[in-house]
């Protein structure tokens, strides 16, 4: 699905079906740093064929959406709100992964009337990024994508066992990041690094917020969610075992079902 907004092409994946029911719940999915909407491939079709209007967005400069890449989480949140307005969406559930989770938080805080629930996957109150990783991403090449994928997947995925027969999660993760335009990953990592408003945003959100974490997540470890649990009265958390940061790939069925439950709260 696509639309033109301010002369720019905006793209999202629908999961192959768009419900014609005007009351069908809308679920906005926001990807993480350097990725695009295809990272939700193991959930989007499942949700779409269960009556959910899926908007797995490609953020500006990612996937098939025109650039430029936005510089900070707040601008990205404003962009999401603008896209939903352009798409005539008045009520939705928003879920995001990693950087996308920060965007989801900020978006829900900025437009409280728009959302009925928020899903956070692999999220922490702060996501500091090591300067060397940012430098590697700025330099281009495979090092930064490989480091992100190494840290991003839990131990089981390093050996394999992809739920989709024949696919290799580690290779696909590296390739998705490598396929991004030069500089995209670096700018996203900087946006994550400097964003410090998650707890403030969370405190402003009154609708249910559900956090899904992996017990082997090295990037947003379970313990890093403690300040969020203290700040968000409506925040609940599920911790998935033997799971790293790439929860949608590592635990596709559990995530799909949780997102379906979340979408149905709309």
């Amino acid at each position, binding site marked *: 699905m696509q639309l033109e907004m301010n002369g720019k092409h905006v793209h999202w994946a629908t999961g192959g079906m768009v419900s014609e029911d005007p009351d069908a719940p809308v679920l906005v999915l926001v990807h993480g740093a350097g990725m695009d909407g295809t990272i939700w491939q193991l959930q989007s079709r499942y949700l779409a064929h269960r009556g959910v209007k899926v908007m797995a967005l490609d953020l500006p400069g990612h996937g098939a959406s025109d650039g430029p890449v936005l510089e900070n989480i707040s601008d990205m949140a404003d962009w999401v709100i603008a896209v939903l307005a352009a798409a005539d969406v008045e009520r939705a559930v928003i879920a995001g992964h990693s950087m996308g989770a920060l965007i989801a938080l900020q978006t829900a805080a900025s437009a409280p009337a728009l959302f009925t629930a928020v899903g956070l996957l692999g999220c922490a109150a702060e996501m500091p990024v090591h300067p060397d990783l940012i430098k590697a991403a700025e330099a281009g090449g495979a090092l930064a994508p490989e480091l992100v994928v190494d840290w991003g997947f839990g131990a089981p995925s390093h050996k394999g*066992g992809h739920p989709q027969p024949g696919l290799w999660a580690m290779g696909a993760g590296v390739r998705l990041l490598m396929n991004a335009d030069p500089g995209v990953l670096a700018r996203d990592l900087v946006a994550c690094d400097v964003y410090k408003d998650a707890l403030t945003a969370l405190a402003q959100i009154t609708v249910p917020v559900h956090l899904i974490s992996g017990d082997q997540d090295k990037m947003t470890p379970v313990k890093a969610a403690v300040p969020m649990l203290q700040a968000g009265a409506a925040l609940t958390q599920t911790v998935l075992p033997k799971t790293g940061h790439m929860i949608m790939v590592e635990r596709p069925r559990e995530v799909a079902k949780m997102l379906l439950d979340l979408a149905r709260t709309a």
Partner: protein
Amino acid sequence: MVAPKFYNFDTLSLHAGHTPDAETGSRAVPIYQTTSYMFESTDHAASLYNLEQPGHIYSRLSNPTVAVLEERMAALEGGVGAVATASGMAAIFLAIATLMDKGGHIVSSGSVYGGTHNLFSYTLPRFGIETTFVNPRDPDGFKAAIRPETRLVFGETLGNPGIEVMNLPVIAEIAHEAGVPLMIDSTFTTPYLMNPFKFGADIVMHSLTKFCGGHGIAIAGCIVDSGAFDWEASGKFPTLTEPYDGYAGIDFAEEFGPQALCMRMRAEGMKDFGACLSPMNAFHILQGLETLPLRMTRHVENAIKVAAFLDAADEVESVNHPSIPSHPDHALAQQLIPKGAGAILSFRIKGGREAGRRFIERVELASHLANVGDAKTLVIHPGSTTHQQMSAEALEAAGIGENLIRVSVGIEDAGDIIADFKTALRASQRG
């Protein structure tokens, strides 16, 4: 800066794709000898059929044992995924039938496996797909042969049987400039000796029957996708970028991104063409992959020794192996395949066709058969077997003469192989 802590090749060759299941703890990959899989519910069944959830339905589409092999090959090649097939030829056809329709065109190295040459020359034209063959050492030839309807550039890492080294970086650039992918048959090099993706190839195929298995007991093939080719930007691959009515209008590139080709090959190709790999054969190939690094090291060591012996033998006109300094691709091989340019070599024997026949008939240790990549040393006369369908002109263009003998150097004691060849060479000249 720290380095990523991925498992290394030797570890992946043993472990990738498999974790012992919690129920049985089976350390070996189980052979899931089953045609089909129980659905949890009607909703679960419907979701599997509609690609809404990952999982197995029917072993023509996917099988847990085969999936381990597929994931292991993808890991070893550094791809996003793989689809295993009943043979290497099934793999080539699967990729081509997924990528193009009637009217499509392939630019291929002329030095390819005889079965591939036959498919391209005689079978695919019946379905409206044409191929232009070019000299694998002539990048300009590849460029000149590309047409608006070209959908694929194809070659082998090491030509068959000329052992030409494909200049992958240069050929890949030519293909990409034309908006088409480069598909490489990497059977002779295996992922241990070379990763074609690092040099710009987009799709890799293997006859797993050969070195990957190594035992000569199972036929298998696979396609591995790098996920790097931008199907949308190319605009020439509607099978991947436009809705597919056969699967409820699915747009593979939009929904699966870098894994679009793998998903379409399985959803359409395995379903409709049905050239699936049996779980038993997948298991056999997996046993081979576990020792691939060890075997390839020995294969290459022996090949270098045998090539050097043949190069010095009075009964031999010429030897084709990139380890020989006079080989036209010696320097290129050192650049692209530094671990060693495989264990297949060919040589022209003095005395023409009769001498070749006598050599083949006098070897005792080496086996005369139509295969390569076995742990045992194999010999064959391509002009009368694997490449017999080729015309005299095509044979000449591919560098195959009547006196050419192809050798797949095994992992026996190198001295024993050389002694066997020495005896057979002497006998070949006695008339």
